[in-house]
């Protein structure tokens, strides 16, 4: 067990190193220079560009730049090229904005997809199963922003509540319940949008897992000895079908930083995804690279956690 953990950690660190190299190369070898972002700006004289290049080590060879960048990242000194603020602070601030979306979205996904999936597995081939199947494919296939517009039009014309942004501007000293409701309305649409794809995929997965377990012999035995169907479905079948999902808890971790670029830009939500998008537009390399690095770390930590969880919950796997 300890050997497995240490070997896997070493492997992940090596992977992380290569990810950092590859992302650095992609960014720096792409055509165009960050100093050319705004060539028409009269304040951007050649001297300023030269100073800028010196300040951020852009005049050094690539591998030296790489070392400088990751030294700064690990000592927490990386600054954004755009506004000279600490990148880690910026990310943390935006992360706190994205967090409620992530939490509500995750809760919606995990609480809705299980009942849907289990029910359609139990009623396999019935009208319920077929319609949920069709709806899941519909939800997977709909372009996110198109769906967002449909929902916005629906909510705004039907309920007359503002939904763009994190809160209504200028509410001032409105009563607390009013402010609270306002925040909830603003939170609801983007999190539903973020969750639909997840619900569709996860409920299909729950369904196929349940079907697989329901076909096992011990389920037939349980049914044959006259146990009530609820007991068979929810105790004997469900508990065994849950196994792969325990490990999926590790895999939702990367979603923490991903944030949806598209959903956040539609709703003007000042979250991670939007920050990354703005950084790409401004060629703010430190921000892009840091976001990339942090998300790679989260992916690796997530897979590590899910490996460990597998070891813990599945007694058949022993090293």
């Amino acid at each position, binding site marked *: 067990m300890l050997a497995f953990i240490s070997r896997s950690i070493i492997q992940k660190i090596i992977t992380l190193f*290569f990810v950092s190299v590859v992302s650095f190369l992609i*960014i720096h070898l792409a055509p165009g220079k960050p100093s050319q972002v705004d060539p028409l700006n009269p304040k951007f004289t050649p001297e300023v560009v030269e100073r800028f290049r010196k300040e951020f080590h852009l005049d050094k060879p690539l591998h030296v730049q790489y070392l400088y960048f990751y030294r700064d990242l690990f000592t927490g000194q990386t600054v954004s090229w755009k506004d000279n603020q600490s990148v880690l602070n910026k990310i943390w601030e935006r992360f706190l904005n994205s967090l409620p979306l992530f939490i509500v979205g995750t809760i919606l996904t995990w609480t809705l997809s299980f009942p849907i999936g289990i029910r359609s597995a139990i009623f396999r081939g019935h009208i319920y199963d077929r319609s949920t199947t069709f709806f899941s494919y519909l939800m997977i296939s709909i*372009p996110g922003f198109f769906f967002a517009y449909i929902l916005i039009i629906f909510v705004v014309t039907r309920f007359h509540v503002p939904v763009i942004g994190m809160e209504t501007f200028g509410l001032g000293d409105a009563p607390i319940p009013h402010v609270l409701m306002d925040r909830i309305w603003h939170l609801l649409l983007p999190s539903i949008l973020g969750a639909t794809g997840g619900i569709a995929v996860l409920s299909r997965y729950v369904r196929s897992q349940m079907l697989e377990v329901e076909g096992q012999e011990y389920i037939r035995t349980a049914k044959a000895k006259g146990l009530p169907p609820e007991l068979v479905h929810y105790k004997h079948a469900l508990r065994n079908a849950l196994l792969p999902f325990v490990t999926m808890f590790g895999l939702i971790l*990367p979603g923490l930083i991903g944030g949806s670029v598209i959903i956040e830009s539609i709703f003007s939500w000042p979250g991670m995804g939007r920050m990354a*998008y703005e950084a*790409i537009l401004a060629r703010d390399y430190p921000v892009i690279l840091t976001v990339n690095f942090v998300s790679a770390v989260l992916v690796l930590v997530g897979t590590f956690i899910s490996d460990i969880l597998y070891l813990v919950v599945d007694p058949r796997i022993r090293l």
Partner: protein
Amino acid sequence: MNLEKKTSQPDFQLERPMAPKSSQIKEFWLVFSNNRLAIGGMIIFILFFCSALLGLFLTSGPDPIFDPAQIRLQEKLRPPLAKANLDTLRPEEVPRMGIYFFGTDDLGRDVFARMLQGAWVSLTVGFVAVGIAILIGIFMGGIAGYFGQHYLGAVSIDTLIMRIVDIMLCFPSFFLILTVVALLPASIYNIMIVIGLTSWMGTTRFVRAEFLSLREQDFVVAARALGVNNFRIIFRHMMPNAIAPVLVSATIGIATAILTEAGLSFLGFGVPPPHATWGNILSDGKRFIFDAPWLTFIPGIAILIVVLSFNLFGEGLRDSLNPKLRQRR
């Protein structure tokens, strides 16, 4: 089961070889035709393919039948099925049959013509991107599965390739595509290539897994014992047996690529202006969503239907190509 039936008959002779009664394709069709959603998906898939080809034919050339680039500022934002106002238009500006089937956009361009042109562009983006991904995937997966045990220095080829896959999987895919597309000059080819280069990992894993199990099977061992060269073993003997999951993931991959292109267009990094794609018709239309909802809904629903049909078709393929499900019948 074929065997049991035949051996029970007394007059059974072992002279003729016992080929399976129905061919692979017949078996496949038996399962596939039972899945109504998949059939619907396939029909829409074929319709879309035909209309994209037709669209290419009708909207290109020096004097296209439906001109997607004709600007008529006096006729902007006309609703679908509106008659063209013949008094204000020069004769060469009049749309075919004098009707705007899908209305016009903010520059007075015929949305029907643009949709026709966009169908072909969206289809090419999907097919080329997935083609690139599949080629890389088969190549990498094939090498990892077949030549996996050979060592390059300290690590085996298999380890090397699978670590590359792991590294690629660490990047958040849409964000990576967005970054690269934004840094590169805007062009339709860059978008196809970037989507292709960032989505080959799944195929690699499938092909590797298939090859690992196939290379131990008797027919491959026999081929090797006969002295068939590696190239022929891989492409003639193993690949046809490994192609089913690749086909499925390609079908679904095309759907994903079309959605990705639409998402990129929405953020302003899609296929640049001379080409119309459904993604950029939709993202141009979003500014007029209350005044001209058809500019949003027509391309949106078109994307939805096409992507849905690809997904349903792909899932149907997966079910019918799955030997476990086939034998259950």
